[in-house]
């Protein structure tokens, strides 16, 4: 795709001699419109082509992520990005020192949260730097616009890095295809649309940047590139908790190289300097702290570090001795002692508890059934479920079968770089199969490997097309002999295909790639561009109906409640309430304290009087629930209720899940369990709902999300009163009444 055959060189000298003659001519028209004056040398033509393609891909990656900005408005989506937005706002208003040492008393009342020490600052600092740069250049944008567009901007940068990475692994043609594939791949778009201001938007750029720099360091053996990869690793650590993938993949890769006999001095230089500098830089982030020397997840890197020292030492001794028998003896002594010492150290460390075992989040990747039995909070997140085949097809389409093809090509031309990309691809595909969210991590690997397949195939096919004339001209060009034998070999090899077959196959490849582009754009438009905080639906006449209930409720909270009011809701909405409602919440999406969340879950699942005790103890003034019965919105609190019961029951055995089920079924109609019909969540969701007719032909109190008529229509609240219900009944806010007077 990138290289033109040598024979074109013979045409160009005449053209370049014509160019100055053409430019010297006085006629303006002929100078502009003469084709001869535009003729460049082959290298320049190729460079122009490459730069044009890269510019187009850069712009494409940015604009394909703008669907929701065009359809709705420039706003932050989902839940987690609101926390990131709030912290970025704080950073730009108060400065870095305040941000780094921030203790927030507005969330997790009454515990508070040490935000400065429990977040990954990379994203916020990046957005703040972009904002300050624009301010210096006198562009007066609001920080929210910068936040919304950070992810598409970094997606464009990722395509550039993918180009250089592809060039490093295979050649510049593969790099161009990789850049084009990753620009529109839905697996990446899902977490980096405009408005999705989340860690992954920046982290995937940092991930592939670090990998590129490391592979470059291994290929060149230069300390400068290793230093750059250490900085890339530092940026990744500051951006996302998924940096654990890097710190485990790179040692695994070094181990594989050692086992396959590819130990070299370049590998030693690259890994050691990257490990030491990267580890030191990573420990500067407060959230990571000393994990690099204390946590079980980081021990592989340290083990490989010591192993490399042993390898180097053995290599040096072997070089000095020049005597195999003596060396064997030495080898015996050293290896046994090294293994014994290493095993002893690891054993003592793990047994004494100094080296902490793998944390639940990452352990559930190795043992997917662990979270369901032991940690319900991790199991309840929808993004942590195992991936279905349909998700793979949805997110990758043709890349799914180009991936094994690319693996084949990589194995044909094994080098340090292709071994790396194969390992990255295989490990990331395994993890993508365990957890839906990790399809994102697999996407760059899949795109790169597929790009190799596409580029190599198209290159072979076009060489078949050019084969015949190449034999005639190759006698005159400089690289003649090698070109002749290779093209002759190709011609013999490709006899079965022939020129017509090659043209047909090329059309087929073009068709597949255009289908991929169509699919990706369709997926982006339909599935991944919804802001989640604003819902849209089709009305009865086909017109678009917008439900802006969430923001309506949060702004009601902001304007109609006292500034020190505490709001209790399920943890999903915590970040949004603090960011938009500006009120203190009890629990939020950080989910760092399971007992606190279980307390809220217990309050929601108890009868009203027990719940009132719990709410008084937490100083709660307002309770917020999300209800989808009127609109048919299915992600409401009644559908999440069983998770509240499970999490609450995990800490307080008084809450038992079977109490809320009837024969194992979860029902809200007349046949529901009595505890279900009278618990706080039921009452708050369905208060006054029994009087409402939601659908033509159905009785009043028909719940459109569950598709049944509710069981308890005559609800009376004793300790709470209704404060606000949004226009489509999606968010309902209740005020907790102060205790009655003594007499």
């Amino acid at each position, binding site marked *: 795709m990138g290289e033109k055959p040598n024979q074109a060189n013979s045409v160009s000298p005449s053209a370049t001699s014509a160019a100055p003659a053409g430019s010297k001519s006085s006629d303006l028209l002929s100078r502009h419109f003469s084709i001869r004056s535009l003729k460049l040398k082959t290298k320049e033509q190729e460079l122009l082509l490459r730069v044009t393609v890269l510019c187009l891909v850069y712009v494409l990656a940015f604009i394909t992520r703008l669907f929701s900005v065009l359809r709705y408005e420039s706003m932050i989506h989902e839940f987690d990005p609101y926390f990131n937005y709030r912290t970025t706002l704080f950073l730009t208003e108060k400065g870095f020192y305040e941000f780094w040492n921030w203790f927030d008393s507005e969330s997790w009342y009454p515990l508070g949260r040490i935000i400065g020490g429990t977040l990954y600052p990379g994203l916020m600092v990046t957005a703040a730097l972009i904002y300050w740069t624009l301010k210096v250049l006198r562009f007066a944008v609001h920080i929210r616009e910068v936040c919304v567009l950070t992810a598409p901007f970094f997606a464009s940068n990722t395509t550039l890095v993918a180009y250089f990475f592809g060039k490093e692994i295979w050649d510049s043609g593969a790099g161009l295809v990789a850049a084009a594939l990753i620009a529109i791949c839905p697996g990446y778009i899902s977490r980096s649309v405009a408005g999705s201001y989340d860690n992954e938007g920046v982290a995937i750029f940092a991930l592939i940047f670090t990998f590129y720099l490391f592979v470059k360091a291994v290929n060149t053996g230069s300390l400068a590139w290793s230093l750059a990869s250490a900085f890339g690793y530092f940026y990744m650590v500051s951006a996302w908790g998924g940096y654990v993938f890097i710190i485990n993949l790179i040692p695994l890769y070094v181990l594989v190289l050692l086992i396959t006999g590819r130990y070299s001095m370049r590998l030693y230089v690259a890994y050691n300097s990257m490990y030491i500098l990267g580890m030191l830089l990573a*420990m500067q982030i407060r959230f990571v702290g000393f994990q690099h020397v204390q946590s079980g997840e980081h021990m592989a890197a340290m083990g490989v570090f010591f192993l490399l020292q042993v390898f180097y030492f053995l290599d040096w001794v072997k070089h000095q001795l020049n005597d195999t028998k003596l060396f064997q*003896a030495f080898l015996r002594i050293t290896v046994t002692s090294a293994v014994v010492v290493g095993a002893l150290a690891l054993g003592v460390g793990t047994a004494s508890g100094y080296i902490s075992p793998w944390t639940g989040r990452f352990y559930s990747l190795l043992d997917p059934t662990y979270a369901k039995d032991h940690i319900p909070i991790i199991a309840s997140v929808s993004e942590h479920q195992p991936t279905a085949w349909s998700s793979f097809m949805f997110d990758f389409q043709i890349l799914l079968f180009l991936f094994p093809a690319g693996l084949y090509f990589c194995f044909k031309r094994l080098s340090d770089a292709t071994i790396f990309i194969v390992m990255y691809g295989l490990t990331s595909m395994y993890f993508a199969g365990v957890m839906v969210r990790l399809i994102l991590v697999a996407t760059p690997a899949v795109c790169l490997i597929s790009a190799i397949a596409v580029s190599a195939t198209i290159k072979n096919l076009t060489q078949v097309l050019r084969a015949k004339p190449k034999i005639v001209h190759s006698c005159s060009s400089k690289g003649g002999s090698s070109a002749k034998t290779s093209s002759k070999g190709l011609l013999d090899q490709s006899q079965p295909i022939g020129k017509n077959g090659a043209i047909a196959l090329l059309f087929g490849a073009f068709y597949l790639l255009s289908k991929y582009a169509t699919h990706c754009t369709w997926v982006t438009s339909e599935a991944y561009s919804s802001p989640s905080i604003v819902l849209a639906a089709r009305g009865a006449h086909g017109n678009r109906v917008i439900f802006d209930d969430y923001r309506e409720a949060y702004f009601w909270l902001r304007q109609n409640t006292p500034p020190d009011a505490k709001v209790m809701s399920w943890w999903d909405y915590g970040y949004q309430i603090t960011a938009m409602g500006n009120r203190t919440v009890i629990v939020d999406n950080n989910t760092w304290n399971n007992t606190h969340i279980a307390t809220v879950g217990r309050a929601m699942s108890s009868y009203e009087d027990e719940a009132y005790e719990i709410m008084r103890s937490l100083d709660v003034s307002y309770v917020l629930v999300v209800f989808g019965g009127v609109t048919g919105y299915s992600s409401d609190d009644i559908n999440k209720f069983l998770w509240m019961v499970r999490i609450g029951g995990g800490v307080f055995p008084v809450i038992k899940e079977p109490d809320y089920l009837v024969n194992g079924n979860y029902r809200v109609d007349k046949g529901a369990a009595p505890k279900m019909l009278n618990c706080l969540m039921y009452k708050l969701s369905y208060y006054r709902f029994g009087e409402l007719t939601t659908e033509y032909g159905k009785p009043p109190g028909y719940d459109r999300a569950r598709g049944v008529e509710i069981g308890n229509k005559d609800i009376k609240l004793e300790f709470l009163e209704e404060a606000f219900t949004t226009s489509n009944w999606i968010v309902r806010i209740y005020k907790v009444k102060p205790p009655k007077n003594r007499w």
Partner: protein
Amino acid sequence: MARSTGDDAITLFHSLRSAYTATPKNLKIIDLYVAFAVSTALIQVAYMAMVGSFPFNSFLSGVLSSVGTAVLAVCLRIQVNKENKEFKDLTPERAYADFILCNLVLHLVIMNFLG
């Protein structure tokens, strides 16, 4: 068996020693620096074993400073050694400049981490 291993060890030691004296002077200087850095790290670990590891960040930064500069010196030795075919088109000046740059970054981070 033990006797032959002992004999092996002695002959090993002597042949290593004779081979080492043949290495060029600039490499021996780098080796001396590495030995100094590693011994500094060992002294710090011994001190930590006696006194306790609080504050841990200071201990880590001290040890990693010694180990880090030792590792970088070994990398420099690899790149400067004329016997390594892979690095024959890397000038010693460039290798030394990389070494200085990496050490600068290392010590700046150490100073931030020292507390």
